[in-house]
């Protein structure tokens, strides 16, 4: 599978360069992208709950995140478009601050945020993608490079896709592949560190605390994905698509700072905080399959119906269903409203158990509620303003649209989250 994806990516690169040379003899073609475009995007996300994975399934899940992003698309000629985007995701997290809850400012407690250094960080990522369209615009090749970094994780990825349009552009078929080579810089719960190989074997103030703990020896994580996509115009007002993704991951799939507590091991406390018995231990491979479909219907000049369904399963025992519907409402030539609803449910991973329900004799275990059985509902509302005349300008760029969206997410495990996102789209004159 891995070799197949890599071969497909290489073939895609060869076809891309060959097609670029072949197409260079054309005299005039309508440009795929008329002029350079810039998107300034920003989101603010916050969540809270009582099942933090870092404290073994109990404790605060409070998290705030802000994500400024810029996306620049540049037409290199009639056929080729280069897109570069950069994103910074800065967060403060009560949950991850409790990797070290013993900051001394107040009694350690899983429901109280620590002032530890791990309580805030920034994820920085960049992507560059290049696409080439054939003369008749019936074939599109694209390649993509991505890189990202945060304090405990680094990733580099490469991907590509090939799309065919036929049946008078009524049908579209695409293949895609992505490979990511990621690395953890493992950070372990503070109280376990003395019990790693070469450690002191003693945590101050807790003479009976003596966990059996070993660090991870392999810290890489590779992900290989392959995707299929087909879309079809079904009538003058109706079109749909089907897509499928297969993902294979191998390497360190556990999160090193997530604690686990066993029911058959005596508890040790420091202040109000139960000291970890171990960290999450997961298998080093995982295969995922997702199959989804979209169906969009143009009801009239005011209303459009957008629907999505996905079935997912993996070899960790999780199955899930996702359904969403959005009904854009055009209230004028410039303004559109976007009410939406999304339903999601999943079964639990084979290795999940709540706080202090695992046995020390198990091979794999986690108390991460993101892998538990749950149902979630998400309600959204957005508004979009479009100015086709781009009257407002900054330098040579005219503003074409502003989008604002808000979503409220509620999980039956108690997690509540909300996200607000703003996007401003500029087009070069």
């Amino acid at each position, binding site marked *: 599978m891995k070799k197949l994806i890599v071969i497909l990516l290489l073939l895609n690169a060869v076809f891309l360069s060959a097609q670029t040379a072949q197409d260079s003899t054309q005299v005039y073609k309508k440009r795929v992208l008329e002029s350079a475009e810039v998107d300034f995007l920003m989101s603010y996300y916050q969540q809270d709950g009582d099942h933090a994975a870092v404290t073994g399934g109990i404790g605060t899940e409070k998290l705030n995140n802000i994500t400024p992003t810029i996306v620049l698309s540049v037409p290199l000629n009639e056929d080729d478009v280069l897109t570069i985007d950069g994103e910074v995701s800065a967060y403060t997290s009560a949950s991850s601050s409790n990797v070290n809850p013993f900051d001394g400012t107040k009694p350690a407690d899983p429901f109280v945020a620590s002032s530890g250094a791990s309580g805030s960080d920034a994820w920085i990522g960049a992507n560059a993608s290049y696409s080439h369209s054939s003369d008749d615009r019936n074939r599109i090749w694209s390649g993509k490079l991505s890189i990202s970094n*945060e304090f405990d994780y680094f990733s580099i990825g490469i991907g590509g896709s090939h799309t065919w349009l036929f049946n008078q552009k009524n049908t579209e078929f695409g293949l895609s592949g*992505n490979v990511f080579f990621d690395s953890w810089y493992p950070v372990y719960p503070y109280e376990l560190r003395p019990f790693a190989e070469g450690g002191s074997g003693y945590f101050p103030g807790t003479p009976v605390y003596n966990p059996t703990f070993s660090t991870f020896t392999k810290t890489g994580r590779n992900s290989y994905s392959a995707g299929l996509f087909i879309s*079809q115009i079904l009538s003058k007002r109706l079109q*749909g698509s089907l897509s499928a*993704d297969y993902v294979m991951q191998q390497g360190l799939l556990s999160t090193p700072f997530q604690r686990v507590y066993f029911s058959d091991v005596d508890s040790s406390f420091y202040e109000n905080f139960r000291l970890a018995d171990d960290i999450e231990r997961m298998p080093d491979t995982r295969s995922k399959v997702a*199959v*989804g479909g979209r169906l969009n219907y143009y009801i009239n000049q005011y209303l459009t119906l957008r629907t999505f369904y996905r079935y997912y399963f993996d070899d960790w025992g999780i199955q899930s269903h996702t359904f969403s519907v959005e009904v854009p409402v055009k209230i004028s030539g410039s303004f559109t409203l976007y009410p939406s609803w999304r339903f999601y449910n999943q079964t639990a991973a084979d290795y999940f158990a709540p706080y202090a329900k695992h046995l020390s004799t198990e091979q794999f275990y986690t108390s991460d509620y993101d892998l538990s059985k749950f149902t979630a509902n998400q309600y959204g509302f957005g508004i979009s303003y479009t100015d086709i005349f781009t009257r407002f300008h900054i330098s040579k760029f005219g503003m074409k649209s502003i989008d604002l969206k808000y979503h409220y997410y509620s999980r039956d495990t108690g997690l509540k989250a909300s996200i607000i996102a703003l996007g401003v789209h500029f087009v070069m004159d």
Partner: protein
Amino acid sequence: MIKKLLLLFVVAITVTSCVSVKEYEKIYLNDPDMVLGLKKLDRFETTFQAYREAAVGANGGKTGGGCGCN
């Protein structure tokens, strides 16, 4: 499972390929809200869902890699 998926795609192509809407008849289909994919602003929503939920893929969002999620 893979065979079933391939069969589904073949059936989908076969059943639907007889439909042909001309370019000049696509005025409704070319509406920006009829796009069969994610808009740029949706990237934040799909990313947080990839962190908070086990399921990924088949929606144009991340399928793994690039973050410690999933």
